[in-house]
């Protein structure tokens, strides 16, 4: 409970201060997913992927929840050195705070998608909406787990921290968002949450592999929590 409360506190700090000195302020929360979905739509068109814009938006939102919670979570201990070395905040609170921020961003994206879907009427169906919510939750859980797993290595070995942004970009390029739906990685690597859910959303088939995805997401989450519970106190010596 304390972990959750402090995770929320740190997330609130990040959210409140993120757009300080910015002219557009929190409008960036809307502009970013829209701009990214538009860009992906045109890239997809150029690659002859026939996916409509609202599905690009949805796919990007779900992917972004995973990648953002995983990669900013991985850097969360290294980036909070002062707190890690001076306070007894449970180590899991740090990646958790990043996942909460990712969830808030993702929720904004989901609302945008919902409006878009209703206005265009192309994919306004309950199955897809439920699938999207499941994919969103699995991505969040898996991303948080992966962030927690990587947080200590990133605090200990700075090469990991330096390489992570690059890996995040690479992950997007390799994800089914850009690879398309028929021969995506998720068919071969269904245990990687964030890729599979996006696949499920894009193909509008949320049935068969959702169980695997949830199992993978919860496994990652459990491992990440366990690692930080067991070795989290080492962070104060490593950051």
């Amino acid at each position, binding site marked *: 409970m304390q972990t959750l409360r402090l995770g929320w506190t740190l997330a609130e700090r990040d959210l*409140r201060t993120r757009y300080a000195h910015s002219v557009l302020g929190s409008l960036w929360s809307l502009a970013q997913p829209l701009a990214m979905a538009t860009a992906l739509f045109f890239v997809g068109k150029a690659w002859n992927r026939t996916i409509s814009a609202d599905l690009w938006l949805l796919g990007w939102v779900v992917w972004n929840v995973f990648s953002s919670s995983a990669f900013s979570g991985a850097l969360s201990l290294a980036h909070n050195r002062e707190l890690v070395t001076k306070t007894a905040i449970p180590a899991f609170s740090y990646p958790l705070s990043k996942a909460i921020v990712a969830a808030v961003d993702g929720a904004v994206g989901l609302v945008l998608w919902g409006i878009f879907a209703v206005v265009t009427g192309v994919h306004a169906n309950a199955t897809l909406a439920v699938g999207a919510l499941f994919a969103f939750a699995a991505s969040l859980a898996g991303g948080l787990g992966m962030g927690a797993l990587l947080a200590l290595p990133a605090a200990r070995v700075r090469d990991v921290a330096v390489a992570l942004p690059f890996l995040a970009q690479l992950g997007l390029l390799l994800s089914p968002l850009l690879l398309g739906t028929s021969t995506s990685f998720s068919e071969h690597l269904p245990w990687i949450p964030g890729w599979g859910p996006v696949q499920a959303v894009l193909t509008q088939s949320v049935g068969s592999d959702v169980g695997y995805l949830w199992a993978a997401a919860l496994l990652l989450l459990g491992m990440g929590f366990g690692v930080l519970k067991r070795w989290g106190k080492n962070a*104060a010596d490593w950051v």
Partner: protein
Amino acid sequence: MKPFIHFDQLTKKFGAHTAVDRLSGRWEAGSSVGIVGANGAGKSTFLRLLSGISAPTSGTLSSSGRLASLLEVGTGFHPELTGRENIFLYGQILGLRRAEIRAQLDAIADFSGVSAQLDLPLKHFSSGQKIRLGFSVAAQLRSDIILLDEVLGVGDAAFQQQSFERMQSLLSEEGRMAVVVSHHLGTIRRMCTQALWLEAGRERLSGPVADVLEAYKNAYAAPEETETLPANPWIASVRWSNSLVAGQPARLEVALNNNSPLQRPNLRLTLFNQHGEFLAPLSPVTSGLESILWPKRARIVLEFDRLPLMRGTYHLGLRLTENDLELAHLPVALPFAVEEGLYFPKGDTFAPRLNGLWLDPRWTVAESNPA
């Protein structure tokens, strides 16, 4: 169950260096323990182990009761958030619940003395105001066990007294326990019932506070010492350039190791008596010498025409800042002794006492006007 801390063979190693070496003990509710020792003795590392911030390399640690650690005032403050938002943020980091903070908000604001600025971003607060705000939040802690690391010596002298009294009042409540790390022996003496003296990570002595402090003081007072080479990369040396006699000229020299000029620098020296109690502050800024820039490897000299200290042993604390950011903080930068001498040319009407200041105001005596 009454709050307690129990540790057995507690050890912390950083590579080949052993910071805390096989410490064992048990402290119960109602006791306040002061931890003393030279810089690098392992005090703060030990406190971090007790706080649960860092894990021991070996040994066991157990405790019961709600534990709060205050290792630095204002950790986690964010300059872009307002004073009010930072109160909530910092309070929750320290373990307070939002409802507790809300209920105490007025008290926190009053104690800090910055009520009028609470809705301004913290970046517009002075460094002193930030410290006051941070301590005011911490003063609301209602934990069974409170761990404090040098946080009672922050702020100006009046605020130090105010915060000290606040902590004493908190600790006087039944069932509380405190572990206090401080170089200020006066603070330890007034707040604690027991003391633990650490040396190179090991227990040198523990027991009733008076006994431990007496032994510690005798070992470290070094009355003849007039120069020291502090273990800080910014400070090359702190020394008196002559032997010290009350009422005679004296010259203190602080040599810095700065490889580039310092912008808006300040050097604050604090004079303490043999009990570690505050006597007087010294700073070029408060004395009217406000500098924009100090040169590379700056050498700061203070000259007294007549040293206003009575016979006794003292020490100087030192804090070096640039643009209000702390570069060096040495609570005991230079212990020294002053020999007996005549401060007033015509002699003194009081027998010189230990550890005091000679003051020389302008005196006048006149008949009062009838009301």
